[in-house]
């Protein structure tokens, strides 16, 4: 029982992060029908930006600002930084190829991914660095009642993800920009004819998706501590899987998919094998694709014959 409860907590934490990453894939795919494979790298850069800000502010052992201000600050700066990286990627790697066949931006995305990894290797080196978040907030703080162990950091990760996702949902439904994004997704040419600046909409989409990845990167650093230049690869793959399971292009789908992958991973580690848990995760993906190719919340694509 204790283990089960713990695995639920772990799955929820991991799933929240995957959901945030999955949202970036879904937003971009929804608008451009493009798989942004450099997205995992944006998450990694966000994590490093958070680490950098933390060091500038005195490090975890003796931060120069109170923890209550520090954590939101890390996330804000990382969101901004990662968002700008995302915008730059779109401007230089995808926009010139927007009219080319779909394989071209895909290759460009992979190239960008390696470029960003190598750049971070140059800038920060290959060593794994640690946020040392246990010095910010003691890991034994939080709720420890009976079988339930949930640290303050984990509560924060789950809470912040929930708030961000609800906020994004409202933004997409209510705001003018959100509507413009949905319109562009539905029919970019018609949207342009209606007087929408498609380039601007695409830019905002990339900024939003990348900012979410930046926040996820910082939270990953805070709860899992270790940051390194290749961390984005697997995280990106899982986020992508999550968005496919949820139905790529759908925002609710990305959230649900993230949680499913998070739970699958934590239960597979706890009850099956810590060696082969990734196999379980991708079996879930294959199972979903076989039985429901469009994912949980995906809409089947209508084609005129």
């Amino acid at each position, binding site marked *: 029982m*204790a*283990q089960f409860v*713990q*695995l639920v907590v*772990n*799955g929820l*934490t*991991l799933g929240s992060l995957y959901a945030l990453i999955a949202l970036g894939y879904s937003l971009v795919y929804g608008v451009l029908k493009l798989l942004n494979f450099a997205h995992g790298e944006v998450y990694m850069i966000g994590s490093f930006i958070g680490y950098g800000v933390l060091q500038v502010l005195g490090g975890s052992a003796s931060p120069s600002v109170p923890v209550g201000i520090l954590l939101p600050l890390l996330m804000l700066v990382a969101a901004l930084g990662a968002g700008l990286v995302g915008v730059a990627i779109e401007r230089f790697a995808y926009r010139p190829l927007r009219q080319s066949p779909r394989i071209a931006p895909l290759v460009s995305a992979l190239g960008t991914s390696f470029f960003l*990894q190598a750049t971070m*290797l*140059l800038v*920060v*080196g*290959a*060593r*794994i*660095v*640690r946020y040392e978040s*246990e010095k910010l907030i003691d*890991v*034994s703080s939080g709720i*420890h009642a009976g079988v339930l*162990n949930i*640290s303050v950091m984990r509560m924060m990760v789950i809470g912040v993800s929930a708030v961000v996702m609800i906020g994004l949902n409202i933004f997409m439904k209510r705001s003018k920009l959100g509507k413009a994004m949905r319109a562009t997704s539905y029919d970019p040419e018609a949207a342009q004819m209606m007087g929408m600046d498609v380039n601007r909409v695409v830019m905002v989409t990339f900024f939003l998706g990348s900012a979410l990845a930046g926040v996820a990167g910082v939270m*990953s650093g805070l709860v*899992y*501590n*270790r940051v*390194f*230049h*290749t*961390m984005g*690869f*697997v*995280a990106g793959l899982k986020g992508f899987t999550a968005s496919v399971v949820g139905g790529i292009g759908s925002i609710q789908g990305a959230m649900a998919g993230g949680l499913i992958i998070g739970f699958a*991973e*934590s*239960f597979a*580690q*706890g009850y099956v094998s*810590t*060696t082969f*848990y990734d196999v379980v995760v991708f079996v879930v993906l294959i199972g979903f694709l076989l039985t429901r190719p469009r994912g949980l919340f995906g809409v089947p694509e209508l084609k005129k014959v």
Partner: protein
Amino acid sequence: MEIDPFLRFYCENIPHRPGSAEPKTTTTIVYLKGEIMTKGRIAATLLAITLAATACGSSKKTVTAGATTAAPAASATTAAPAATTAAPAATTAAKAAPCSAKIGFMGPFTGDAASIGQEQLNWGKLGLADYNKANGTDFAFVETDTKLDPAEATTGAQKLVSDNSVVAILGPAGSQEVEAVGPAMTAANLAYVSPSATRTSLTAGKLPSFARVVPNDDAQGPTVAKFIAEKIAAKKVLIIDDQTSYSTGLADSATAAFKTLNVTVARESIAQKSTDFSSLVSKVTDDTGAVFLPWQLAANAQQLGTQLKEQGKKAVVVGSDGVYSPKDFSLEGAYVTSFAPDVRGVASAAAVVAAYQKAYDDKFGTFGPPVYVAAQLLATAVKTTCKDGKPGARADVTAAMKKVKLDNTILGGPVALDDKGDVVGAKFYLSQVKGGKYTLVA
């Protein structure tokens, strides 16, 4: 147990390709397993190392310290107090002319492992200077930079072999280098003592003139098992490997050792690049007394320990020598092994440590002090062959080396070699983390 401490250091510093669980240098090790490398293998090795080095090199500044660096070296000779561990007093040499000889010194003085190489260089210089002072000898090093590269080491070894005035060699540092220089050394019957190569196979008989002053990898599993069973008094132990050859090998040898001590062992395994260890940690049962981590990345061990605490688990964490890193691994109360002790905590080393700190700095780890001992060992061997101020033939020095006994060394015990070239009764050391510092406990 294929990766020696040097490569482990190296592995932590080279880039990993996405999706591959093991660092790239592992390829190198596979290439180096052979006894004598074929040309193709050498080429492949060079390529692998160049690739790794190019990638690492760009991320770190290459230290361009030449062989004759360290300005403080001169002061070391004057400032160093008489070593407490001075080898046999010079009673016979008092009348005759001082014995004068050259000893080769191979180490990674530049390149990616330069921080370790420079530490080794400084400790070696101090060791030889102390020996000269205490024994009235006139021994000098011929320094050769290997860059932790078997190809460089081979070239360097050939140079030293062809220099007839060189009668013994200190080094090289890495196990892969020792294997590479083996044929040249064996042909010349030239004694060489490594201060840091731990690969077990090196002393299996193929390298007759080789010896080392550090334990081989086989000693680690039993050392850890004995400590956990007796000092931590754990009845049940969880061993988690990190899916590298170093880790699984060490985990296997520890598992076998635990069985002989009647300790129940559970095994788990997790990839180095896994994001989250908390689900693995949830499997640690309440009756598990200790978790042994034969890992290469200290930051990972730190994270796993933190998550144990987060989930209220009481098991004690014991890390292998790959985790030894006061900067990255500082779990209060945890234990960590090392192939040499931190000599700051060894009583008999106090005077030497003070001299070193005065001449150089306090930034040394476990790689330097064994070099001091290796220098003593070789100098002692050369001196016993000395006649009329001249050293004996290389073969004589090699024979003498195997008989040297140092009664007390800065590593905290006597050093004598068995017929294979391993230190008799060599063991790994265990330190405990107390107040963020490592304290030697066994």
